[in-house]
C-alpha cells in the first residue's frame, strides 16, 4: 500500500506590482514522492496561476531550486519525507538573492552572466570530474570520455551564501568554483576576475554553499583552493615565471 500523508503546501505568491503572500493548499501526498511533484500537483489541480521553473526532474538541469522550509533544495530530488511529516506544513519559497519573476520562478540572468564571464565548463573529460565509487576496473585512459560537469548552475549556493545576500557585486560560490575548476595556470586571464575585492577574497567561510549544493561541487573547498591558485600565480609573476 502506498503511504499517504496530509500536508499543507504553503506556496510563496508574488505577482507584478502586488504584495507577496502565501497560499495554503491542503494536499494528500505520498511521502516518497518529491517536493516538486507536490508543487506540480498544486499547479495542475488547485491553482493554475502558480509560476515555477522545472524541466528534467532528475537533478541535471538545475531549474527547480527553491527554499523548502527555509533551506535551499533541488525540489526534484528532495523527497517529501525528508523535509516534513504527516499533518505538517511544507513551505516553498523562491531562491534568495535572485530577482523574482513570479511566485517561485526567479530570473537567472545575472547569475548566468557571471558563469559565462568565468567561462564555466559545461562538459569536461571524465577524469577531471571525480566520481564517487568509480568502477574499480576502469581503464586509466578514461580521459577520452566526456561528461557533463557536476555544477548544474542551479543557484542554490548563490541563495545560501550570506555574503551574496548583501551585494550583487560578489562573484559568488558557483562562478568562483567554476574558475577554480578550470585552473588559473590553464586560464591565466581569469586571475584578474577572481583576484579582487568582489572575487575570491570576499568569501568568509560560512560553507553554506557546500552545505546546500545538490551536486557534489563543494564550492567552499574550491574557493579556498582558488585562493591558493591566486597566491601561486602572483608568486610566479613576482619571480618571473608566469
Amino acid at each position: 500500500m502506498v503511504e499517504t500523508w496530509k500536508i499543507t503546501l504553503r506556496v510563496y505568491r508574488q505577482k507584478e506590482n502586488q504584495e507577496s503572500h502565501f497560499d495554503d493548499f491542503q494536499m494528500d501526498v505520498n511521502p516518497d514522492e518529491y517536493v516538486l511533484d507536490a508543487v506540480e500537483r498544486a499547479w495542475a489541480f488547485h491553482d493554475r496561476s502558480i509560476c515555477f521553473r522545472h524541466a528534467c526532474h532528475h537533478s541535471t538541469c538545475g531549474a527547480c531550486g527553491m527554499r523548502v522550509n527555509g533551506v535551499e533544495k533541488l525540489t526534484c530530488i528532495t523527497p517529501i519525507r525528508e523535509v516534513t511529516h504527516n499533518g505538517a506544513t511544507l513551505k516553498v519559497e523562491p531562491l534568495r538573492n535572485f530577482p523574482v519573476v513570479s511566485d517561485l520562478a526567479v530570473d537567472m540572468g545575472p547569475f548566468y552572466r557571471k558563469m559565462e564571464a568565468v567561462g564555466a565548463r559545461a562538459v569536461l573529460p571524465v577524469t577531471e570530474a571525480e566520481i564517487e565509487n568509480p568502477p574499480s576496473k576502469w581503464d586509466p585512459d578514461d580521459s577520452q570520455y566526456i561528461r557533463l560537469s557536476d555544477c548544474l548552475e542551479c543557484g542554490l549556493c548563490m541563495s545560501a551564501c550570506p555574503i551574496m545576500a548583501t551585494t550583487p557585486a560578489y562573484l559568488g560560490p558557483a562562478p568562483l568554483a567554476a574558475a577554480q575548476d578550470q585552473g588559473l595556470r590553464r586560464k591565466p586571464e581569469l586571475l584578474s576576475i577572481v583576484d579582487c575585492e568582489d572575487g575570491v577574497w570576499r568569501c568568509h567561510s560560512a560553507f553554506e554553499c557546500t552545505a546546500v549544493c545538490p551536486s557534489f561541487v563543494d564550492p567552499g573547498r574550491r574557493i579556498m583552493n582558488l585562493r591558493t591558485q591566486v597566491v601561486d600565480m602572483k608568486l610566479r609573476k613576482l619571480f618571473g615565471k608566469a
Partner: protein
Amino acid sequence: MSKPQVIIIGAGFTGVATAHDLALRGCEVTVVERGDLCNGTSGRTHGLLHSGGRYAVKDKESAVECIDENMILRKIVPQVIEPNGGLFIALDESDLAYAEQFIESCQECHIPLEELKPSQALKLEPNINPNVLVAFTIPDGTFDPLRLALAFAGTAKHHGAKFHTFTEVESLLTDGAGNVEGIKALNRASGRSEELRADVVVNATGAWAGHITAMAGLDAPVKPTPGIMVAYNQRFVQRAINRLNAPGDGDIVLPQRRMAVVGTTSFDAENVDYIPVVDDQIKLMLERGSELIPGIRSAKPRGIYMAARPLVGGGSGRSIARTFKCYDHKETHNVDGLVTITGGKATTLRAMAEKTADVVCAKLNISTPCLTKETPLLSYRSYYTTPN
C-alpha cells in the same frame, strides 16, 4: 518592408528549434510558453542522443533521421552532449536471435556499428552484466535536456526571437472566415492578457497539440503516451547501454553526470498536465535496469518522473512510428494561419524545425534556405545573457 511575423506556441524542443530556424531565415519570431522552457515533455526526456539503432529494424525512416541528426547535433551543439557512444548488449537467446536483423538494418540505415566479443565489451564497460553474450557499439550519446533547448533558444534570441514565458494562450484570434490571425494570451506573472498578431501561428505544443487546435475547432492526431524514468545515484558506465532486442520497457540505461537513468515504459494517459508515478513501473525499471547493469540493484533512486511523449498516427504504444508530422491546417481543414508540428523525438528536433520552417516559409513566400545544419549554436547561457 517589415519582417514576416511568426508566433510559436510552446518552448519545448520543437518550439525552440523552430524559433532558431525561422529567425535565421529572417522571420520575426515570438515564442509563447505557459511555463518556462522545457517544463513539459521535453524537459523529462531520457536524454538519449539516438544513433537510431533502436529503430533500425522496425522503423527505418526514424532510424535514418536519428543517425543523421545525431551527427549534426554533435557538430552544432557539443556543449550539451556526453558523446561517448553506446552499446547494444545481448543477454539471452532471444537477444542473440535479434542480432542478425539488427546488424543488417543498421547497415541499411548507415548507422556505424562494430561487433564486440563479451571480453571486449566488459573491458570497455566493466559494470555491465557479466553474462553478456555479444555487444555492438553504436554512436549513441547523452545530452542535457534543458541545455539543449537553451542553446537553440539563446541562438534564436541572438537573431531577434522573443520569448514570453509564463504566458498561456487562452484563445486564437481569427478573422471572419475562421483563419488564425494571432493569439490572446494571459501573462501569468503579471496577470494581464495580451493580444499578439502574426502571419503564421505555429502550434509546437507536442503532447498538448490537440489542446491548441481545439481553439480553432480542429483536432490533432496526437496520442499522449507517457513513460517512466528512474535516475539512480551512481554513474556505473560511460556510454548508453541498450538491450539488444525489439524495443521494450526499461531497455535503456544512460549515464548522465553522476547518475544512471533507466527508461522507459509506454502507456495511455488522459490528463497530460500531470501524470502520477506508478509504483509497479518503478519496480520494473529496477528489474530491467539491473539486468543490464547489476549494480543498479544496490543503487538508490535519485529522481523518478513521468512525461507524455507526443505520438502521432494510429495504433497505440510502441507500434506508432516515432517520426513527426507537420500539418498546414489550410490543407487539412481549410483554416489558414495555423501550422501544427508534433510527434518526433528529442534527437530529431532540428529536422522537425526544418520541416516546419519550410512549411511556414512556403506560406510566407520566403525563399531563404534552411541554415541550421551548418550553423553552430551559441553557448546555452546566451538564452539568459541576451536581453529580450
